[in-house]
C-alpha cells in the first residue's frame, strides 16, 4: 500500500491503473496465443489438418474441431414420414383459417368424421379438439403414402397443402366433448400406472409424457382423451405388427409391440374417457 505523503493521489493511483491493465490483458493474450494458435496448430498437425484450418476451427469460423478430422455421414436417410416441421410448414399451420376448412369438411369429411369432429362409426377417429399439427401430419402422410387407408389415401391426395391446414384448423377449433359420465369408470391401477409412469423395466415410457395436452411431447402427437376405444385398439395393433409405420423414430411401433393384449384393451378403455 502506498505511504500517505504529500504526493498527489492521482500520481499514486496511476501505477494501479497501468499494472492492473497489463496483468488483465496479459492473461487474455496468453489465452489467445495458447488457445487459438499453439494448441490448435499442434493438435491439428497430428491429425493432418493444416495450420490455417486449425486456427479457423478454433475460432469457430470453420466448423469442426481443430483436433479431429470432420466425420461425414453419407448414409441416405429414409424417413417414415415426409412431414418436416420447418418454419414454412409451421407458418402454413399458423395461417390456416377454420372457416375455409369448414367448406371442405362439409363437402368431404363430414360423412365419416362428422361436422363437429365426432365420428359416425367406431372405426373412425374423433377429430374434435385434436391439435392442428396432429391432423395435418396424418393428412400429409396419407397424401405422401407414409400411411395408407382405402379411402383416406384417395381423399388426401386431392387436397393441396393449405387446404390440409385449413381442415386441420377447423377440426382443431371444434370444442372438446364433455366427458361422458358413463365412460369415466375407474381404470385398473396397472393401466393408470402405465399412463402416468410407464414401465421402465420394459422400456415403456408413460403415455402421458407425450399424449397429454401441454406435456411437451412432439407437436404432432395426438391428444387421446375421448377417442374411440375400437380405433385405439386397432391402431396399437397395427403399430405392434408394423402394418402402420408413419411414427417418427418408430416410437409407437416400439412401444405398442411391448404391450400385452390386456394392456392395449385397458389403455383404449382409459382413453375412451376424458382425463381425470
Amino acid at each position, binding site marked *: 500500500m502506498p505511504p500517505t505523503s504529500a504526493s498527489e493521489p492521482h500520481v499514486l493511483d496511476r501505477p494501479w491503473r497501468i499494472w492492473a491493465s497489463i496483468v488483465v490483458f496479459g492473461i487474455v493474450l*496468453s489465452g489467445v496465443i495458447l*488457445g487459438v494458435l499453439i494448441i490448435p496448430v499442434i493438435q491439428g498437425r497430428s491429425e493432418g489438418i493444416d495450420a490455417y484450418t486449425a486456427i479457423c476451427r478454433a475460432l*469457430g469460423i470453420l466448423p469442426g474441431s481443430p483436433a479431429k478430422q470432420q466425420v461425414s455421414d453419407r448414409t441416405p436417410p429414409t424417413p417414415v414420414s415426409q412431414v418436416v416441421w420447418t418454419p414454412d410448414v409451421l407458418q402454413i399451420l399458423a395461417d390456416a383459417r377454420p372457416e375455409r376448412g369448414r367448406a371442405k369438411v362439409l363437402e368431404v369429411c363430414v360423412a365419416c368424421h362428422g361436422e363437429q369432429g365426432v365420428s359416425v362409426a367406431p372405426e373412425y377417429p374423433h377429430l374434435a379438439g385434436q391439435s392442428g399439427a396432429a391432423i395435418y401430419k396424418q393428412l400429409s402422410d396419407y397424401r405422401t403414402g407414409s400411411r395408407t387407408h382405402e379411402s383416406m389415401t384417395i381423399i388426401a391426395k386431392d387436397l393441396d397443402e393449405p387446404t390440409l391446414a385449413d381442415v386441420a384448423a377447423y377440426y382443431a377449433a371444434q370444442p372438446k366433448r364433455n366427458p361422458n359420465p358413463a365412460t369415466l369408470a375407474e381404470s385398473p391401477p396397472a393401466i393408470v400406472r402405465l399412463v*402416468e409412469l410407464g414401465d421402465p423395466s420394459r422400456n415403456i415410457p408413460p403415455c402421458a409424457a407425450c399424449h397429454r395436452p401441454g406435456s*411437451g411431447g412432439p*407437436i404432432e402427437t395426438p391428444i387421446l382423451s375421448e377417442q374411440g376405444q375400437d380405433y385405439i385398439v386397432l391402431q396399437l395393433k397395427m403399430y405392434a405388427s408394423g402394418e402402420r409405420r408413419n411414427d417418427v423414430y418408430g416410437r409407437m411401433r416400439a412401444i405398442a409391440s411391448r404391450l400385452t393384449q390386456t394392456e392395449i384393451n385397458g389403455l383404449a378403455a382409459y382413453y375412451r374417457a376424458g382425463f381425470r
Partner: protein
Amino acid sequence: MRNVERLCLAHFWVAFAAFLAAAVLGTWQMWVRSPLGANVGTPGQYFLSVTAHGVSMAYVLTIFFIMGFGYFVAVTALGRPLPGKLWAWIAFWIAIIGVVMALVPILMGQASVLYTFYPPLTASPWFYIGLVFIVAGSWIWCVLMLVAMRQWKRDNPGRPVPLAMFATVANSVLWLWTTVGVAIELVFQVIPASLGFGQTIDAGLARTLFSWTLHAIVYFWLIPAYIAFYTMVPRAAGGRLYSDTMGRFTFILFLVYSLPVGMHHLLMDPEHGNGWKFIQVLLTAFVSVPTLLTIFTVTASLEIAGRLRGGRGVFGWITALPWQRPTVLAAGLAFVMLGFGGFGGIINMGYGVNAMVHNTSWVTAHFHLIFGGSVVIMYFAIAYEIWPSLTGHDHASSAPLRMQLWLWFLGMMVMTLPWHWLGLQGQWRRIANFNYADPIISGWGPLVIVSLGGGLVLLASALLFVRNLVILHGGPLPALQRPLYALAVHPPQRVPAALNGFGLWNVLVLILMLLAYGYPIAQFVITPSPGAMVHRVH
C-alpha cells in the same frame, strides 16, 4: 440501525419462506428418485417441483436475501440513513409482484422448464415476465447501493469506503453486468417465442447469452458469504481482519473474473470454436484466485484471534478458537464444504474431465455443496448475527443455533458426497425417476437412499433455522449493542482510487467481455443458424 428494520425483515422473510418451501420440495424430489419412492408422483409433477425448487432457491432466496443484507450493510457500515427508502420499498413490491407472476404458472404446471429455461422449451410468458420483474426490483437495489456509496464518499473525501459496503457495491455492480445476458435472452428471444411470435428460436444464441449470466450469478450469491468471512467472522472470533486490502482485491477479482468465463458451462455445446472455450476456461482458472486469497486471509485472521485467546504452537490456535459461537462454527463448516466443492469445480472446469461428468449428478453435487453448503450456511450465520439488531431480542442460548448449523453441514455432506460418486458412475441429472430393475442402475440404489437421508437431515435443519429466527421476534432477552464488523490489523487510512471504486474495473470488464463474448455472440448475427422449433410446454 436507522429505521430499516422492517425493510430488511420483509426481504429476509420472503427469502426464508421461499427457502423453506424449496427445501420441502427438494426432499420430495430426492424421495421420488430413490428406490423408496419409485412409482410416486409423475414426471410432470417432478419437473414442476424441480422448477419451483430452482426458482425459489436461485432467484427468490438469493435476490431477496442479498437486497435485505445490502440495505442492512449500507446503514450499519456507513453509519447513515439509507437514501431513497421509498424506492427500496417500491423495489421490494415490484419483486414480490414478479414472484407471484412466476409462481402461479409454475404451480399450474405451465412453466416446467427449470430455472435455467432450456430454450427451445418455452413456458407461459407470465413465468418469464415475473422473473423480469424480480430482476427489475433488484436493479433498483443496485442503484440505491451505488447512490449510498457515492453520497458517503462525497461527505468523506479521500477516506476508504468500509470494506463491507465496498463489497456490497461490488456485488451490485457485478449483478448489473450479470443480468444483461439473461435480460437480452428473455426480452428478445424467449418472451417473444413464448408469446407466439415466430416458430423458431436460436437455441445456441440463447444458451450463449444465458452462459454470460450463469456463472457470474453464482458469485452474486456467494459475495454475501465472503462479506461475512471478511468482516463478521474475525469479529466473532475475537480477532482482527488480517488485511483489508486483500479483501478489496478479492471482491474486485470476483467482479473482473466471474463475467467473461461463462462459456465453461458450454464446453459440450457445438456452437462455439474450441479457441473461445480455451480462453474462457483460462480466465475461469483465475476465479479460484480470490477464493484462495480469502482462505488465506480469513485463516490468518482466525489465527490472530486464536493466538490472542492463548493458542500456542502450529495448530494450537485452532482449538483455542471460540467454536461455540455460531458465526465461527459456520465459517469453519463452510470452509470444509468450500474445499470439497471447490476441487469438484476445478474438475468441472477442465474440458476433458468435464466431458466425463457432464450432465451427471456430479454437477448437481458440486453446486449444492458450494451454494447450498458453504454459501447458504453463511446466510444462516449472517441471519443469526444480525437478527438481534433487527428484532431487538437476543438468543437465550446458542445451542439450537449450533445444532442447526451442524445438521446443515452433515446433511449436505451426506447428500452430496454420494451424488459425486454416482455422477462418476454415470447417473444422469434432470431425470424424473430411475429404473432400479436395471442391473446397473440397481447398484446405485443404496447410495441414492443414503443421500435421501442427507436430504431429510437438511429439511430438519431448515425447519430448525426458521424456528430459531421466529422465536427471536418475541424473545425475552433484550439485544446488546455490539460491533458487527471486524477492524483490520492495519485499518486503512487511504487506499488508491482503484481499490475504493469501480471505474477502472468497469472499463476492464467491458473490454474483457468484448474480447471473450464479442465474436461468440456476433457469429449468430453474421451467419444466422436455422433455429430450433419452439417447443411449448404451456
